[in-house]
């Protein structure tokens, strides 16, 4: 077994059950590792060691009393700093919320507590989850543990980097246009974006409400299944949460054996795709072919419009969602406002970073009088076509396999131009627009030693199948178990 801080949930839950370790020991190991590497990785906005150790002690006491809550009991799970934890800071990596302390728990936080997890730390992100590199954090830029000069991806860069660096056993992120899958690919971890509506958004700071979804980062597909099991399910506080039976995802990894029909969309293998990424993904395709899967070419003809549709819908929704950050009830308030309107103008100007401002402006524009039909309404219609493309493909295949990111991790500061940054999400955006589940699984390294991830896209609410397909690959390879030299 690897060191505690690089072990999987599956390994650790066995070790805990067998009495080979305790949650306090595990949590101490994670804290020690964090203290050793965090100065270089900068994955956290804050962490509370005393609080984590108290939760760990409570877990050990439960276990001693024979009341263990399951495989997550006693496991330190890091939380992206857009998910509410009672009594802990909730900053969205924004100056706007630098001093905000949440008076309530997100539903996923509550669910993790019910599963016995040790809620551990607040993980860095692009401010308000807007970005693909975590460079937009108002506090600090998180580094890629595989190359500290490179970005971890984003917006859940802190969640991906912390896990890759051994600073947590699993983490939660949120994915609006690829914010879980892309950093997972860039940091060599598994990242799952569930079907829209499977996991409650209550307590997740909204970026784009119709696209946001919380999901896990883990060291294996099996761990993703374990974590999803804990956080999925209907929540009466989220009107978009779906009422469906939640299957046993971990059991499905063993019971669902394929062979499957796997679709390869040609639109995802064109211009802009790094040849090393293309080669790694092709190898994964060959793996499935060899295990007897049927590999089919499929077409998602509206793919090229995805980025445009996404940046209209996401910015429109965010311009409205972020109106509440006005310096009135909480958050940053400008010290020199002369009247209420001035207070709004200045508090928001001082509290938001440039990318957030850019998106608010774009979103306000596309909704403004005279432009709504040309932009927002049209984007919603093209969204329908994009969604239909996927559903048509699923007439023929069980899952779709693509690269997660067109390139491995890029250097910090390499994408100063917003549009270039937006194009990082070209392979992940369609999944959010269609509301589908998507998972990024490590599938190799570049010649420069940078992680490469592949994306599997599943059918709505069929996470059990998606995870089984991903697990077939992941369990046959050791990519996801490799660790960086830090």
């Amino acid at each position, binding site marked *: 077994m690897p060191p505690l801080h690089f072990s999987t949930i599956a390994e650790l839950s066995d070790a805990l059950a067998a009495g080979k370790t305790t949650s306090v020991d595990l949590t101490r190991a994670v804290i020690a590792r964090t203290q050793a590497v965090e100065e270089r990785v900068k994955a956290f906005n804050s962490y509370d060691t005393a609080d984590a150790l108290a939760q760990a002690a409570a877990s050990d006491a439960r276990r001693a009393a024979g009341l263990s809550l399951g495989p997550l009991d006693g496991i330190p799970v890091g939380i992206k700093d857009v998910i509410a934890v009672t009594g802990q800071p909730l900053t969205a990596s924004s100056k706007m919320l630098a*001093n*905000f*302390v949440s*008076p309530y728990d997100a539903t996923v936080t509550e669910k993790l507590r019910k599963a016995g997890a040790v809620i551990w730390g607040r993980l860095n992100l692009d401010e308000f989850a807007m970005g693909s590199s975590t460079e937009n954090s108002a506090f600090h830029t998180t580094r890629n543990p595989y190359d500290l000069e490179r970005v971890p991806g984003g917006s859940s860069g802190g969640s991906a980097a912390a896990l890759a660096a051994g600073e947590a056993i699993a983490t939660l992120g949120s994915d609006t246009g690829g914010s879980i899958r892309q950093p997972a690919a860039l940091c060599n971890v598994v990242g799952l974006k569930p*079907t*829209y*509506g499977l996991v409650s958004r209550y307590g997740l700071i909204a970026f784009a409400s*119709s696209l946001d979804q919380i999901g896990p980062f883990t060291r294996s597909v099996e761990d993703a299944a374990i974590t999803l099991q804990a956080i999925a399910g209907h929540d*009466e506080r989220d*009107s978009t949460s*779906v009422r469906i039976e939640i299957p046993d995802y971990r059991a499905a990894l063993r019971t669902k054996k394929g062979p499957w029909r796997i679709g390869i969309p040609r639109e995802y293998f064109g211009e802009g795709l790094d040849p090393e990424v293309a080669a790694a993904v092709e190898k994964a395709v060959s793996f499935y072919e060899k295990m007897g899967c049927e590999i089919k070419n499929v077409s998602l003809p*509206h793919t*090229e*419009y995805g*980025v*445009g*549709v996404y*940046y*209209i819908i996401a910015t429109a929704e965010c311009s409205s969602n972020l*109106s509440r950050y006005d310096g*009135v*009830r*909480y*958050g940053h*308030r400008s010290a020199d406002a*002369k*009247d*209420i*309107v*001035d*207070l*709004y*103008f200045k508090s*928001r*100007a001082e509290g938001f970073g440039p990318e957030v*401002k*850019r998106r*608010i*402006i*774009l979103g*306000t*524009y596309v909704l*403004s009088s005279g*432009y709504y039909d040309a*932009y927002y*309404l*049209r984007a*919603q*219609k*093209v*969204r*329908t*076509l994009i*969604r239909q493309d996927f559903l048509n493909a699923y007439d023929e295949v069980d899952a779709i396999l693509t690269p997660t990111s067109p390139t491995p991790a890029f250097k910090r500061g390499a994408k100063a131009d*917003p*549009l270039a940054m*937006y194009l990082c999400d070209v392979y992940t955006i369609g999944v959010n627009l269609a*509301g*589908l589940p998507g998972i990024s699984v490590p599938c190799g390294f570049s010649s420069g030693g940078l992680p490469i991830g592949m994306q599997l896209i599943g059918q*709505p609410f069929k996470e059990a199948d998606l995870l089984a397909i991903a697990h077939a690959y992941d369990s046959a390879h050791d990519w996801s178990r490799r660790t960086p030299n830090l």
Partner: protein
Amino acid sequence: MSAHDDLNIDRIANLARLALTPEEKVKFSAQLADVLTNIEKLKQVDVTGVEPTAHAFPIYNVWADDVATPGLSVEAALRNAPEKRDNMIVVPKVVE
């Protein structure tokens, strides 16, 4: 001429209640023009007869019964308030 040539950044920033510096105005205008040019592609798509998607999986009639449950204490409600007095939030005098 495309639609975004008339992105009047002052008007939009006013609607968004966002003070922008002259430098930001210049920079954002140029950057957003780039993005909007990319977005212009959507005009090529034939959307006649296509219904808009507001929700990927629309469901109807999601509601709760009218049962009152306890809320936040005043202390918790105002805990993050930048300025408070008499259990209320203080704002600059609002002239209606």
